């Protein structure tokens, strides 16, 4: 049957089901295929902390949202156009993210009495008219999957586990995507299990064919490729990009990479990724705890490697004392904090930006550490690379702030040319003549990196206060004050070595929206939207938070108002107010979820007024 084609600029789809339903896999496959078609995109995996929560429960729902389009896409989408719900719980949890008039594709087989009860529905929402403001398509996905596999004699369990491919096939049909990339992926993934290849491929095709033949769907959609800059692209998540950025820094510097880490959500994937790449001489050490993670990394740095530790908020807290040691030792070290909802164990799988003040100030005494934040999943690559550059050049620990949203979210990435990456040139001290452990480079104030094994440089370092130049233990009052100021001055000098901050939009105006980290996409979308309306609003996203770029103050003073949207109670705003004495306004959100562009747009309207 011939169906109408409709062109769309952008679409947001959310796949939702039980945590055992394979929704993350389904979403990622849809993402890969969509990326290959040349759409711009952004994703938001949203899954529970429980591995296989009891089937059918509200807390066991796992979701994956993808926003893609023929235009620039900066966020995973404010509201969904399509919700694929594999059971009542998935519908109930995700309905609020669906726009009015949006499409629901529900697995009607999942809406049985038991599941309805588990989700707290009195009656079946697919039948009771409560979803009348949406376009509801009930499809017997489980039954149709069984039909497709009827003759293979597979166990019930195996058949059930294929049903996500039926849903994926339907969505491929609806949004006019090819099946081949996923079929290729299935063949690779299950190459040791021909039975699975056959089953999953068949079900995928059955879903596609169902779309083609059923009378339920009258329209299918097309989303043309986005006008991305020419070049070679891949899809990348924030955690992958951090890992590759670190490897790139290792290659460019000629130093081995050492990761000391303790598994913690959502940072563990960096450990997993780095553990794969031993042929880059990467050494990964799964330590006995967070403290051993950072301590071993400090030991490796002392030996001349790039010592790295990766963690999330609770682990960051445990590393605090060792971070202070690294400040005192003045050794290069990378601490990557993939922030999650807190305090305490908090929301392990959800995102938040509330570790900023911890990163800046969360240590005993005066212990300045450079802090830089990644703004998109792909930006994690250059952020990690830059962190290593600074750490080595200034002989200092550096904190990278990522977050759960960046870590697991994916976007298309214009693959950088290896030759275009700057060189990192570590200088080890080898000359014993005139060597003192705490002598300093005049320009950077860095002390020499003198590694064990170097003849004639035997010396002692430690956490006790150091005497200027000699590094001997010193309790002298004046020396202590001098060294406290020296360590601060060294970090401050990094401001001379980083590019100036760049405003998106006009350089002067009524409102500057200042963000940091993963809020980039939502702020950019909101500001562009408001600029189209003619509002005098610009955007500044800060990558360098300690030290700030030198022109940040100047930029702030060029605007009548400053708005800082943050996934915390206003931590950056507090720092900006203190440093620049500007009356920054906070837009706060702490729900474990990223900002929607509309939330920022509304705040801009509130400040500037809705009329022009």
């Amino acid at each position, binding site marked *: 049957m011939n169906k109408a084609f409709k062109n769309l600029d952008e679409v947001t789809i959310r796949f939702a089901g039980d945590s055992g339903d394979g929704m993350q896999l389904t979403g990622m496959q849809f993402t890969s295929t969509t990326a290959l078609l040349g759409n711009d995109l952004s994703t938001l995996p949203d899954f529970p902390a429980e591995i296989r929560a009891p089937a059918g429960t509200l807390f066991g729902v796992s979701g994956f949202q993808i926003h893609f389009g023929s235009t620039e896409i900066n966020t995973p989408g404010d509201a969904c156009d399509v919700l694929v719900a594999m059971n009542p719980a998935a519908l109930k949890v995700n309905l609020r993210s669906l726009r009015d008039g949006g499409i629901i594709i529900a697995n009607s087989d999942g809406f049985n009495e038991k599941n309805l009860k588990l989700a707290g529905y009195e009656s079946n929402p697919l039948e009771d008219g409560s979803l009348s403001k949406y376009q509801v398509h009930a499809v017997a996905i489980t039954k149709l999957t069984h039909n497709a596999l009827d003759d293979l004699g597979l166990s019930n369990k195996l058949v059930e586990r294929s049903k996500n491919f039926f849903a994926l096939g339907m969505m491929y049909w609806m949004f006019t995507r090819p099946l081949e990339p996923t079929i290729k992926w299935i063949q690779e993934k299950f190459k040791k299990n021909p039975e699975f290849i056959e089953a999953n491929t068949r079900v995928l095709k059955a879903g596609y064919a169902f779309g083609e033949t059923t009378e339920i769907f009258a329209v299918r959609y097309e989303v043309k490729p986005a006008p991305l800059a020419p070049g070679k692209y891949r899809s990348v998540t924030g955690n992958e990009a951090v890992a590759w950025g670190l490897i790139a820094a290792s290659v460019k510097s000629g130093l081995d990479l050492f990761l000391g880490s303790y598994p913690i959500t959502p940072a563990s994937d960096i450990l997993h990724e780095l553990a794969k790449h031993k*042929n880059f001489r990467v050494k990964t050490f799964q330590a006995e705890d967070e403290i051993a993670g950072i301590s071993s990394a400090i030991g490796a740095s002392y*030996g001349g*490697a790039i010592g790295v530790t990766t963690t999330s908020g609770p682990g960051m807290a445990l590393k605090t004392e060792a971070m202070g040691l690294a400040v005192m030792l003045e050794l290069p070290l990378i601490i990557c904090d993939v922030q999650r909802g807190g305090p305490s164990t908090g929301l392990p799988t959800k995102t938040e930006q509330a570790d900023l003040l911890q990163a800046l100030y969360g240590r005993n005494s005066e212990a300045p550490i450079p802090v830089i934040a990644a703004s998109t999943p792909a930006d994690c690559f250059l952020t990690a690379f830059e962190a290593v550059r600074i750490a080595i050049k200034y002989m200092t620990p550096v904190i990278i702030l990522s977050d759960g949203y960046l870590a697991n979210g994916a976007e298309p990435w214009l693959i*950088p040319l290896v030759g275009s990456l700057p060189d990192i040139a570590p200088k080890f001290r080898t000359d014993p003549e005139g060597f003192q452990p705490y002598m300093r480079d005049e320009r950077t104030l860095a002390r020499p990196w003198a590694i*064990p094994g170097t003849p004639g440089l035997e010396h002692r370092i430690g956490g006790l206060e150091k005497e200027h130049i000699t590094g001997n233990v010193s309790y002298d009052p004046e020396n202590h004050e001098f060294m406290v100021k020296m360590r601060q001055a060294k970090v401050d000098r990094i401001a001379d070595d980083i590019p100036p901050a760049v405003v998106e939009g006009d350089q002067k105006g009524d409102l500057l929206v200042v963000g940091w980290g993963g809020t980039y996409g939502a702020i950019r979308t909101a500001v562009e939207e408001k600029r189209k309306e003619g509002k005098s609003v610009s955007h500044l996203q800060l990558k360098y938070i300690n030290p700030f770029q030198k022109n940040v103050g100047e930029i702030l003073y060029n605007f009548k108002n400053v708005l800082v949207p943050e996934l915390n109670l206003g931590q950056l705003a507090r720092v900006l107010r203190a440093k620049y004495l500007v009356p920054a306004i906070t837009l706060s959100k702490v729900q474990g979820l990223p900002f929607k562009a509309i939330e920022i747009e509304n705040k801009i309207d509130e400040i500037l007024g809705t009329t022009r």
Partner: protein
Amino acid sequence: MNLVDDILKDAPVTPPVKYTAKDFQSDQDVRWCPGCGDYSILAQVQRVMPDLNIPKHRIVFVSGIGCSSRFPYYMETYGFHSIHGRAPAIASGLKIARPDLMIWVATGDGDGLSIGGNHLIHVCRRNVDLKILLFNNEIYGLTKGQYSPTSEVGKVTKSTPYGSIDHPFNPLLVALGAEASFVARTLDRDPKHLQTIIRRAADHKGTSFIEIYQNCNVFNDGAFFKYTEKETKDDNVVFIEHGKPMVFGKEHDKGIRLEGFTPTVVSLKDGKYSASDLIVHNEKDTMLSFILARMSSIPDLPRPVGVVYSVERPLYEAEVSKQIQQATQKQGEGNLEKLLNHGETWTIK
């Protein structure tokens, strides 16, 4: 070749001159209390170092916090005085990154068995080639006299005016329980024995754990005198040696015999037992090592001093390097461009 290998490629792997103990004395003033057992340990370590035939620049001493942890300042080698309890973790990272270095860890009963207990057991189980000197004085010295995890029950200290109620750790059992591949005990006031054990640890490949009975003459004076002083030592210590029966006593007239799994003291004087009835020490016997370590907890038995256990097993850092070699053989040396372009990519024109 990476940068580190490159700058160190010409560094000598044997000492450029014949060292003496003096070569290992740093220019720092030693700040332990006069009469402290630490002086003897420092002197014996400095005395043994020249025999190891390793250049100073390849030796690193790492420590945590406490009196014992000042040790690295006094050694003319590379030294790293870190934070409380973390020395084994820092040293592990260093050894994994740099297997070419000889790394010693100086720690104490508080640093190693209390705040750093977790790192200590994990380094033992991994068998990283670190030589751990645990100065056991059964007290907290640097914080001025609180009971430690090795203090005996009932210990009256500033923090336990009514006596401590904690059951103490037996350091040898902790190390054996964590499967350290070399476990020994020695005494600060027996320089010769101390030197022998330090040498043995230096030669051992793998985590070497040495418990050193160390006198804190300020806060716990005489805690080990029973085992270290001339008048009482012979009757309260059995010096164990591989392949030799366990004889002790001033007159060499007592021995340790196993009855079932229970070590008992027997007299060799009355003709009932001879040396052939005694336990013959075997450093490789896992079961025996636990029995010997447990003897410290039984009041009437002498304390075994010497190498309790010594076996070879794979070195952690060597296994790490092996995996890197294997991966490199299989996949070729890492190529950044290939890494960034692997998997699915697409081109926009």
